[in-house]
């Protein structure tokens, strides 16, 4: 049985114009109450706003950090994997352009999942004192990484411009850009699903708190961020694409640099993203009503 936690009166059954809230025990799987999320949109805004504000308080470089981190990582990968590890020769694209477009969705994913995974536990004081749709908590932890993504995107555009001006033959920015919003949306869905799943699992089983950082690190290596897709044997690629971030990262790279997008892989990853989202949100909604009791 599905009972939404707060239902508005179905019709003009009551004379009063006041909103009526019904509270009763719920059982089983709960659907997402989009209407309620919408009513609480300002709180979402404030939660993201808080995270952004707090992040750069008492820092000298401020928002520059959003750009420095992926740039520094790119340099490290370029030197160690690209030059010293010889991966540069296996990539048609210049190595920085292989990494940077992939680092943006990856860092969004990694930061959101690390933040989001522990977000519920970190918001215990809110959850035990105030009501709001609990989904806002993991959702809001995607906000700050999303802003970072947009800021680093400007740097990426400059990089692309630089390569184009220098006449780099492997780069062709053009029609493929239309796919970018698609992969951005896919990344968002996958990230929200994984973050939500981890946040709920962390409340139920604190083991996941320890597992989280570790899982994100491993996830990095099974995602083609620091290496080209071509080093993965053909026959394993579809299995490899079960990692939702595989398709998204490759798609991002393709949409931005004109490199061919492997659509079969993208489709598998999209399906896997949808599955993560479904399972994550469903599990979250299922144990949500116990949060305040077990937190």
């Amino acid at each position, binding site marked *: 049985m599905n009972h939404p936690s707060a239902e508005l009166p179905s019709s003009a059954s009551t004379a009063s114009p006041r909103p009526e809230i019904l509270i009763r025990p719920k059982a089983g799987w709960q659907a997402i109450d989009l209407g309620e999320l919408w009513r609480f949109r300002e709180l979402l805004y404030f939660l993201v706003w808080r995270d952004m504000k707090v992040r750069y308080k008492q820092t000298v470089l401020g928002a520059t950090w959003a750009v420095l981190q992926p740039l520094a990582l790119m340099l490290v990968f370029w030197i160690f994997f690209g030059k010293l590890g010889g991966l540069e020769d296996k990539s048609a694209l210049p190595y920085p352009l292989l990494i940077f477009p992939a680092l943006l969705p990856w860092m969004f994913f990694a930061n959101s999942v690390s933040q989001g995974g522990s977000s519920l536990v970190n918001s215990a004081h809110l959850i035990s004192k*105030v009501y*709001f749709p609990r989904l806002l908590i993991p959702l809001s932890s995607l906000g700050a990484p999303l802003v970072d993504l947009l800021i680093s995107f400007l740097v990426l555009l400059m990089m692309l411009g630089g390569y184009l001006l220098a006449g780099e033959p492997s780069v062709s920015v053009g029609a493929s850009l239309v796919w970018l919003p698609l992969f951005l949306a896919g990344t968002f869905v996958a990230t929200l699903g994984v973050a939500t799943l981890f946040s709920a699992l962390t409340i139920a089983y604190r083991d996941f708190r320890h597992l989280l950082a570790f899982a994100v690190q491993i996830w990095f290596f099974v995602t083609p961020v620091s290496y080209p897709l071509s080093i993965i044997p053909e026959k394993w690629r579809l299995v490899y694409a079960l990692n939702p971030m595989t398709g998204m990262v490759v798609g991002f790279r393709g949409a931005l640099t004109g490199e061919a997008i492997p659509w079969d892989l993208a489709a598998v990853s999209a399906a896997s993203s949808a599955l993560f989202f479904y399972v994550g949100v469903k599990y979250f909604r299922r144990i949500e009503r116990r949060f305040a009791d077990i937190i």
Partner: protein
Amino acid sequence: MSDWAIRVEDVSKRYFLGAAEKAPTTFVEAVGGLFAAPWRRFRELSQAEAVDREFWALRHVSFEVREGDVIGIVGHNGAGKSTLLKILSRITEPTTGTIRLRGRVASLLEVGTGFHPELTGRENIYLNGSILGMTRREIAAKFDAIVDFSGVETFLDTPFKRYSSGMGVRLAFAVAAHLDPEILIVDEVLAVGDAQFQKKCLGKMSEVAGSGRTVLFVSHNLSAVENFCTRGMLLRQGELILDGSSGDIVDRYLAEIHRDSTSGAELPPVRGVRLRVETVGEAGPIKPGEPMRFHLELKTETPLHEASVAIGIDDSRGQRLTTLFTFQQMQQSWEIPRQATLEARWNAVNLAPGSYSLNVTLYDGLTLKAHWERAAVMSIVDGDYFGTGRMPDPHVHGSQLTRVDWTVESE
């Protein structure tokens, strides 16, 4: 003439005690539990322990609140007041029953929920206002009034972490005071800040109470309940035992305090030890300044060789005030073959009126043998400790009463 605002029908809430044993909290435990499950189930079935471990914080509570009612909810710690408010605030879900709320609800289970130490006062007003359910426009419109009420305008752009605790509480209360709901649910948030600010808060509360809003108010401050509330409800062990005028409720509650503080029932055994604790005022109810006795009866299945007992006294917030520990206060420990009776006499109680919980720990030599959390509740009623007719408020002045000799020289 007025319509209902809250309707509570047959609400019960169950918690599981010793949840760590029942529901796994780590994944490893859960996996381990899979293997242990058959054994555990066997043990539970054979000893019928399962029923003992659940705890009903609320049982079959039903009531209706009319628009404009101001209701005070009183009861001992653990009577279910907080659970009721948590359910009404939708923080936790009832196990059975339904609740209908009609109107915009705001609940204040604490002041300053969500305040962030790194943000400035100004930023925190917005954040906290939003968490409490105000829209951005509403906050902007009330911003000046909030700042004015709090009296911290000079520190608006200072990070909250640099506020003194008094300033912090004032700002937090100021935001809460400007909520404008139709139904307000408040948990004991009045006793904050210095005396002057408290007066302001109480003034605000009575203003809210007189404005036709529906208010549900949990408090230990019986005079506040009597003054503001039109109606009262008394909870005991999860049951709503009386619903009536606030004056009646306060009288009945005081009578309960008196009765409960003199009777002690035998507690369920802990590791083969049974305990009965009684607190007895030598002249009726326990009053500050008067003598009382702690009376403990212990029955043990296995003999103890070097027994010692500690009685910890905690205030209503769970703060340990003092511990009466035989190991520290007596030279010798004793042997208990089967049972023992202990008595501790306190010549002049120096605790402020209120209820205190007693935690009893039994040691055998250096090992902890058994522990009873909240083994008994000791209630201390109003008494004239200083001989001035004036008593301190434990929330503001602390629970300990100290008599000193004052000399004042002035010119």
